[in-house]
Each structure stands twice: as structure tokens, then as C-alpha cells.
């Protein structure tokens, strides 16, 4: 086992392979205050990649309701149960064990093996609230009755459990963008990756008899475009970019800005130790203890930071750039109420006003000699 640096848990940890960070790291930030579980992302992904035989049950991108939903069934509850209770104080390194460190010598990672049936209920718990609303109830903040939606893709982890578990080394992490792929010509369908991934984003295809996973839409990414799930998001809750580790942070890089500079976005279940590269702006009204289990003990800091956005034009600008372009935004700027997105060369991709201008028109259009109907 090698010793590698995991900045999310603020300490070194054990991993079967040496640390080898890619030149660029694919990552997505999701604003969970905005997800409405319309599932457009799931269908965009399915239409593009998983409409073949054997892929019928697969959702490389899925959206589940928390706390009662999960796909596959109980994936997070089960892996946390296998790992056992661990300790993590706020603003300190993680004291507990990662899934690699807690593994028995026979295993690469603490895991549970999903059964056939576990995959068959992707909508379980959808829209289930933690409690019923009864007479006399009134709004409280944080909500005493709550749920939120959790959209998730493969996290293209820095320390993937799938890659560690493959006996044939048929899984690799690309040096150019950190995307983790299963080599379809070398996989023999043992299913060890399916067992090992705690997020359960490696999936066995019973028709081709090999395993598959989210490919980060690498054909689009290679051409400078964001993944299908990001491009098609109706609520514009997502942005895909290339994250740097904190010691190489670039403040005008959208993902670095949200994760490192402002601390608004956090990785999920970082205590598992994979250094996942999908980051979430936490839902600010959900139960704080639940959020701490999912996002770490510093989740309150992110929530408080989010509440300050109303006075922060730079962050507001970045949020309106989300969903404004299908191209990957390498850097951004906000000047005089307008947010600008730039590509790798520094050329402008798009500019978006933070506040949409309000235009009043006369009720009667004299040029066309017509009454304007009251359609906004």
C-alpha cells in the first residue's frame, strides 16, 4: 500500500497505488438548492450512452431524494454501516479510517455487494419527506420536515476504489483530464469494481458481460464541451470544469472558486477517502446533522457562505454563468454587473447580465399597428 495525500480529509492516507494526479481533473459542481429532480440529466445521459442492451437498468447519472431514496438501494447507508462509526472534528483532519484503511487484507476496500434486486428501484423514496405536515405546522428554518434531491454522476475520484479493486488493471485514470474509464476490451466482468465503488457508479452489463461506468462524456470534453448531463440541466444547477488541488488553486477558475476560494461546494462522503471530484453546494435548509454526515463537519461554513451571496456580485456572476453555455468555462470574471466566461485561450465564450434587464413596451405597437398581447 502506498501513502497518498488526500486534501479533502486533510491528511495522508493508504491507497494501493502511488499518488499520480492528472494534468487536469474533470469535476462538476452542483447547487443542491436548485435541483428539482426533473431527471432531464438522467435522460440526457441515458439517451446518449445507456440505451443499449444490458444497459436498461443503468443510470450513470441518477437523481435520488434524500434521505429516503437511493439507487441502488441503500448504497450510502450500507457503505457507512460497513465502515462503522468514525470521528471527524470540525476544522481538523479526519480522525477515522477510509474504506481502504478499514479493509480486511482480502479486500481492497470496505464495501457491500449490491444484489440483483438492489438495482431495480431507482425511484424509491422519491419526494418522500422526513415527516408529515399536520395542522398548526409552520415554516421553520432549518426545516424540521425536509428532503432534498441529490443528482450524482461518477465522481472520477482521485483515488478510485473501482480502479484499486480490478484484478486485471482494466480500469485506468486518464492523465489528460482525470476521467476514470473501464477498458471495454480488457474487462472480464468479474464485478469487483461494482462491489468496491462505494458510490455504486460501476455497473455490470449482463448482455456484454463486462462492466461499464460514466465516461465523463470524454468525447465532448475533449472538444471543449461540458458533459450531456450538465449541458441539459434545466435548472442550470451544474457547472463542469477542471479543478486544481488547493495548493494550485486559481481563483478565476469557476470550480476552484466555488470549492477552494469560497468554500461553497463540498465533496460528498469525503470520509470514505476516494477524493471524489463532484462537489455540492449543500441545501441550506436541510437537517444539519444529516448534512454533516454527507459533507463533513464543516458544512455549516458552506451554508453560511451561501447566505452571503446576495452581497457578493462575483459569486452571483458565476452562478448565472452556470447553464449559460455548452462549452467548458476555463476562467470567468464579473465586471459592472455582467459575468464573462472565457475558454482555454482566454477568448470570451459568453457574457450574461447578473440581473436580467427589464424592458417595458407600449401596449400598442404603432409600427405594426397592432395591440401587444399581455404575454411576458
Amino acid at each position, binding site marked *: 500500500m502506498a501513502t497518498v495525500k488526500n486534501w479533502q480529509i486533510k491528511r495522508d492516507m493508504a491507497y494501493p497505488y502511488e499518488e499520480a494526479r492528472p494534468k487536469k481533473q474533470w469535476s462538476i459542481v452542483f447547487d443542491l438548492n436548485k435541483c428539482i429532480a426533473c431527471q432531464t440529466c438522467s435522460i440526457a445521459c441515458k439517451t446518449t450512452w445507456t*440505451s443499449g442492451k444490458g444497459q*436498461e437498468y443503468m443510470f450513470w447519472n441518477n437523481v435520488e431524494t434524500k434521505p429516503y431514496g437511493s439507487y441502488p438501494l441503500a448504497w450510502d447507508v450500507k457503505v457507512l454501516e460497513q465502515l462503522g462509526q468514525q470521528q471527524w472534528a470540525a476544522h481538523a483532519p479526519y480522525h477515522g479510517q477510509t474504506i481502504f484503511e478499514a479493509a480486511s487484507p482480502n*479486500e481492497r476496500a470496505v464495501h457491500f455487494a449490491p444484489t440483483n434486486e438492489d438495482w431495480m428501484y431507482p425511484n424509491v423514496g422519491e419526494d418522500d419527506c422526513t415527516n408529515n405536515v399536520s395542522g398548526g405546522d409552520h415554516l421553520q428554518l432549518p426545516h424540521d420536515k425536509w428532503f432534498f434531491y441529490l443528482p450524482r454522476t461518477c465522481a472520477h475520484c482521485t483515488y478510485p476504489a473501482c480502479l484499486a479493486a480490478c484484478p486485471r488493471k482494466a480500469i485506468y485514470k486518464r492523465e489528460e483530464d482525470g476521467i476514470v474509464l473501464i*477498458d471495454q476490451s480488457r474487462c*472480464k466482468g468479474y464485478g469487483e469494481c461494482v462491489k468496491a465503488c462505494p458510490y455504486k457508479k460501476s455497473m*455490470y452489463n449482463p448482455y456484454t458481460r463486462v462492466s*461499464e461506468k460514466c465516461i465523463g462524456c470524454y468525447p465532448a470534453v475533449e472538444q471543449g464541451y461540458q458533459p450531456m448531463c450538465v449541458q441539459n440541466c434545466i435548472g442550470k444547477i451544474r457547472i463542469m470544469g477542471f479543478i486544481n488541488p488547493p495548493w494550485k488553486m486559481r481563483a478565476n477558475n469557476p470550480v476552484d472558486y466555488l470549492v477552494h476560494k469560497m468554500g461553497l461546494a463540498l465533496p460528498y462522503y469525503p470520509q470514505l477517502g476516494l477524493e471524489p471530484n463532484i462537489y455540492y453546494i449543500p441545501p441550506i435548509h436541510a437537517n444539519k446533522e444529516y448534512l454533516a454526515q454527507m459533507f463533513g463537519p464543516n458544512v455549516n461554513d458552506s451554508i453560511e457562505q451561501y447566505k452571503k451571496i446576495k452581497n457578493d456580485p462575483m459569486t452571483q456572476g458565476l452562478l448565472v454563468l452556470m447553464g449559460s453555455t455548452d462549452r467548458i468555462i476555463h476562467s470567468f470574471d464579473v465586471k459592472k454587473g455582467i459575468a464573462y466566461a472565457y475558454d482555454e485561450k482566454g477568448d470570451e465564450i459568453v457574457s450574461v447580465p447578473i440581473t436580467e434587464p427589464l424592458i417595458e413596451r407600449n401596449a400598442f405597437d404603432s409600427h405594426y399597428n397592432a395591440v401587444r398581447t399581455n404575454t411576458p
Partner: protein
Amino acid sequence: MKIKNFLFFLILILVFSPLSIFASITIHKVSTSELEAATQKDYATSSAWKEAAETLINLMAQPMIAPRPAAVTTPELFIKAISDGKSVVFYGRWKDPTLSDDEKLGNPAPDAFAIQFPASAGDLPPIFMGAKGFPVEIAHWTIRSQNDLEKGKKEMKDIYPNMNVDIYPMEFKDAGNLKNLTEEQRRVYSPGKSSGNPQSYRKQTAVDVIWAEGFGSSALQDEHDFHGKGYWTEDGYWHVFIKGPLKPHYTHSSFAVWNNSAGGRKDLSMVWTPLETSGLKK
């Protein structure tokens, strides 16, 4: 480090395989017609097998690299071998309470059996899949390959009879430019197939032949002369026959068994077992 590993495993072998490290497999001479008959359904009554000596091979949970079984699931494998001088048939028998050939999600690795030989004359390769410059040749039977060969590769409706799918994009017949999809275009929707992975195609033989030079290097051979047939009996035993050419460099063999219902990870023999062929020269 390599010497340390070797010594460690030598000790492991000596502790856990007290009897079978001294075993050898005597290949019993038979006529060609007896050889052909010996893999049929009435193998139990075949005189060829009655006369062949049986060797007990002790198996261990694969010890070298995680993920691996926590404990051995098939501790005993019984081997017989017959030959007409040109072809050899190995008969492997082991206890397995369930026939596992289900192709659903959950535990994909089918019940399987493999025999490993040195791939060339000279020094014996390391027993764990060989090493660079010391290749091994492996005849690998699985119940799934046998089912493919005898019954055809399962379609999704065979694996999940109650499933419903509205449509597959590659099967649009009337939709404009998708009307005349070529086979290559259809295959794009099955990444395993379009990358040419043999796993994804109907197996044309119940036995694959694999060459390897160390862990993770196994490569399927396109053409070979191995065949196989397995029978599972209600008393909870697999009886698997693997037939192939008797090559001069097959001086030793080792074995592996996969039991799906016990987790599907490999149990294997820890020592090369010599093949005794002196009886064939008579």
C-alpha cells in the same frame, strides 16, 4: 522482495498442502474410441475412468493479490487423466452444492474450472499466472461458455423474462436514416462488443485457452484445439472434462476452481503437479 515472497509462499504451501505437494497425476493410456466416449453423459460407467488413478489436489484461496477469497471455498479437487498418446482428457471433480449459471446482476462470475500448463519447455514458470519470459497456457472452462455453445447466448429477455423495454435505438426500422443501420453501427450501443471483447460474444467453445505472463496479462487465444464439457450432479458435484492435444511440454499442471455461490473468487493449487506419462509409451 521476490525471494521473500517466494519463501513466504513456500512456507504457506508446506503448511497447507501436506499431502498434495507430493502428488502426481498419472495419465492412463486408453484407445482413441475410449477417449471419445469418456466425455459423454454416461462417463460414470466408462471403463477408461474406472481404471484411471485419481489424484487429490488441495486448493487454497488465491493468496497473492486482493481482492481474494477470505477462506478457501473448494478445498479438494479430484483429478483423473486419460490419453491415447495424441489427445489428453482431464476429469476434474469437486463439491459445489449449486449449479451457478445465472447471468443476472449481483454475482456475475460463473462456476468455472481451469488447468494451467507451462507454455514451453524449460524451467517451470511461477505458478501464479507465470511471469515475463515464463508464459503459461491455461485451459479455462465455464458453465456460461458451455451454455453459450449448446443453447446460444442469452438475450435480455432470457435473463429477465419479465422485463419491458419500449425500444432500442438500434432497432428503429422506420425512422429515416436509422432504417439501414449496419451491424457495426448497431454494435456501438454495446461497448463490450464494439471493442471486440470476446466476453461479449457468443462463445464458440466451452473452453477458452489463455496465455499469460504474470498477473493481469492474460490474453485469449483465437485458435486452439481444446474442448470441454461439464455435468453437475444432484449430489452437489461438478464433473468437468477438458480435452486437448497432449503437448510435449505439458510436464506439469496446476488447477483452479471458481464457485459462484460461495463468492466467485478463485481457489487454486499452490504447487505444480507432475504429469506422469510413462504409461503412454507402452
